[in-house]
């Protein structure tokens, strides 16, 4: 509220970048670490956002008339703190991931990709059609306590960064542990991991669920950022943005995922400023330039640095002679 101009824009971009970074870390656990080709990022993102919106649905009586301190959301007249809303979003995403994982995680990589793409679309259609739950195409309001604060955007940025820090720590500790090693073994050769006594289905499920829960957390933050969510925020296109962040940053590296997300933000939002510097370039054309730029950058990265910024060349290229 109090911020304006470039500062407000910067804060907003950093928040969005932080959310993409959280999503990218979640995907990195699934793809970079375990080799699960998950194309349903947007679905879990959406599940998290809708959960946060649902638990914060405005009831008849608002809880804030109780004079509670800030950072409480309103669950049909019953106040719960924001962290709980975020955790609930993670739990619901996790439960859905378990249910989706049971039939799909037995599939080979490429079939998992196809199945998860279909499931993502199914979940988006549920958002769109189950109006009693989600508000359908008109969307769902989030009773966001942050909007009453003096520095709404800045608070959200701080929350996002804190969450990003926690998620990064969890992911990094996880992948450096024997657990992460077992996941890497599955990525390299699942049958060998089985021969070594690893319950690969259970481990893949863990990676899938934890990654999806992280995506759900990003969804809850997105709900707080947008204040109003519709199914169109979670179309499959955004899944590929997250994939681009992971590929550009370097699959298998959590730091890479964060850098990739930052890079994605520059590519997505940078072009609209080009019209300020290039006379004759209209604003809308400049904004659409981002698609061209993203495609170009992706081609360049895959050609000249297939492992991404921080990825390990050995892992990501077939032939290392």
């Amino acid at each position: 509220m109090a911020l304006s101009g470039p500062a407000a824009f910067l804060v907003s971009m950093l928040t969005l970048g932080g959310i993409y970074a959280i999503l990218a870390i979640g995907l990195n656990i699934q793809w970079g670490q375990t080799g699960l080709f998950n194309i349903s990022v947007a679905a879990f993102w959406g599940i998290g956002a809708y959960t946060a919106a649902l638990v914060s649905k405005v009831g008849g009586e608002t809880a804030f008339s109780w004079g509670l301190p800030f950072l409480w959301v309103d669950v049909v007249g019953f106040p719960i703190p924001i962290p709980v809303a975020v955790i609930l979003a993670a739990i619901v995403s996790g439960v859905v991931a378990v249910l989706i994982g049971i039939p799909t995680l037995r599939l080979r990589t490429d079939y998992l990709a196809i199945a998860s793409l279909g499931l993502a679309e199914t979940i988006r259609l549920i958002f769109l059609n189950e109006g009693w739950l989600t508000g359908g195409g008109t969307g769902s309001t989030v009773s966001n306590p942050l909007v009453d604060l003096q520095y709404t955007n800045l608070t959200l940025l701080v929350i996002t960064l804190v969450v990003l820090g926690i998620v990064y720590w969890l992911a990094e500790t996880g992948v450096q542990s024997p657990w992460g090693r077992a996941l890497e073994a599955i990525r390299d050769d699942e049958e060998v991991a089985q021969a070594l006594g690893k319950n690969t289905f259970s481990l893949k499920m863990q990676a899938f669920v934890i990654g999806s829960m992280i995506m759900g957390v990003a969804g809850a933050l997105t709900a707080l950022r947008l204040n109003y969510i519709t199914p169109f925020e979670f179309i499959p296109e955004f899944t590929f943005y997250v994939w681009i962040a992971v590929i550009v940053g370097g699959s298998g590296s959590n730091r890479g995922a964060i850098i990739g997300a930052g890079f994605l933000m520059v590519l997505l939002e940078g072009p609209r400023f080009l019209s300020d510097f290039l006379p004759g370039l209209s604003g809308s054309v400049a904004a659409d330039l981002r698609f061209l730029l993203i495609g170009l950058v992706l081609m360049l990265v895959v050609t000249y640095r297939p492992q991404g910024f921080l990825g390990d060349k050995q892992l990501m290229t077939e032939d290392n002679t």
Partner: protein
Amino acid sequence: MSDEPLLAVDGIEKHFGGITAVDGVEFEIEEGTIVGLIGPNGAGKTTTFKMLGGFLPPDAGEIRYRGTDLQDIMQPSRAEKSYFTGSAALVAGLGGLALASQSTPSTAIQAGAAAVGAGAGLGAYRGQEILKTRHFGHKYSRPFQVSRAGMMRTFQITRELEGLTVFENLLLSPKNQPGENVLKTWMRFNSVTETEAANHERAEEVLDLLDLEHLRDEYAGNLSGGQRKLLELGRVLMADPDLILLDEPVAGVNPTLSKTLLARIRDLRDQGYTFCIVEHDMDVIMNLSERIIVMHQGQKLMEGTPEEVQGNQRVIDAYLGG
């Protein structure tokens, strides 16, 4: 029970479409011995190996490890079963809730529909489980449980985890690592770091034993064929199984290294490990094994000491295409 050999294979069969890969093979492996499994290409050795390791369920017959049927060893745990049952109930319950929510705003009816759905889901799942196991003879194939029980195999074509270093490959294999529970890792259980430290120590010993120290931090994908065979043996040693199934342990290994490897296998046998080895190199298998099982066209041709096998006319015929 005490008479039961370490491994008893009883009339196992495996068919792939119209092809019978293994046709009623039976043999036993006594604890602390080295048993060779030989036969011309296509005799069914590798298929037999896969069945022993739990990677393929036999179509008929039984494999008993320490007196327990492999199928029983590979049963999903109670926790796993309840997890699948619970998921089925949850999905069907949510379905019931969604259906009821379309037609009525009454919370009681919605809750009732959810409960009925959950019950139906639970019943349907249990029903199909019973149908599957009792009436359709469903066989489990969960090799990791066989491996945990103490029977471990290597692969014919070495399959290293190329994205892991040599050292990480070794660290991967020990059983019961608390660090493989990510919650324990996050909550910094002492057992995680303690076990990891102990495993590090063991891995260093194994590296030393196999003469691979200089490759400690090299990616396994960069190793030569022979070094990979060594690493694969090392990985098995780290897990400390009782019965080790080696599929062509010295194929592609240079003679000096292969001598070391065979000496190691003998040492380990003396320490009480049991081996079952598939190998094409006749010198190796004749020198190493106490008993040899000869397979031909999916069946057991004969079984005996190396001398008996070498002198047997049917074996010679099978190998020379008689």
